[in-house]
């Protein structure tokens, strides 16, 4: 069981490593769940990652309350010091900070790709493996 969780964390970490490698605009990022649990992050220490995810969650929660009918699946807050992006997809979230005036479309695309890559790494582990049908039993039954 421990092997599975280490493997999942490695998949998420690998997805983040790929993200920061392909996007020079992204400074830091964290993958987390709806409950705020950090899956992986680019931060050196856990405390900073937790603080960042908490702040990102607060931002998303505040944005959710603005339209009663729907909650946003992507948020961008741009400031003169830099931008913060939060993307939600199928119960998984990613938050990232960028340099000022980033290429918004590209950053969203990269973040969604990272979420999908992390999710693809999780899927085989979360899905129960299908047992191969025994040919002998089929043969006996017929």
């Amino acid at each position: 069981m421990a092997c599975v969780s280490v493997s999942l964390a490695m998949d998420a970490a690998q997805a983040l490593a790929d993200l920061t490698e392909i996007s020079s605009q992204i400074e830091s990022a964290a993958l987390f769940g709806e409950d705020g649990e950090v899956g992986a992050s680019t931060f050196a220490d856990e405390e900073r990652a937790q603080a960042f995810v908490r702040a990102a969650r607060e931002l998303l929660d505040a944005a959710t309350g603005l339209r009663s009918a729907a909650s946003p699946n992507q948020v961008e807050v741009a400031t003169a010091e830099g931008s913060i992006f939060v993307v939600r997809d199928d119960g998984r979230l990613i938050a990232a900070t960028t340099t000022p005036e980033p290429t918004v479309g590209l950053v969203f695309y990269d973040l969604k790709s990272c979420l999908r890559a992390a999710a693809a790494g999780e899927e085989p582990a979360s899905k129960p493996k299908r047992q191969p049908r025994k040919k002998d039993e089929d043969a006996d039954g017929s």
Partner: protein
Amino acid sequence: MVRRLLGLSALLGFALAVASFVRRGAGRRRERVDLYYDDGSMVSLPDGSPESERLLALGRDALRAARA
């Protein structure tokens, strides 16, 4: 001579006012909050609105947390 100095200082004052206006405008454009929804719609919160100011403050908090 005095008239020339007055004209020059008026021109300088005008130039400074224009520069300040442009800088403030550019700074304002750099600060914005955009929300994207599942149905493909996008809402850009109006500058200076309470919602926008609140989300900008939370965004700054997140940036500080990341860069601390």
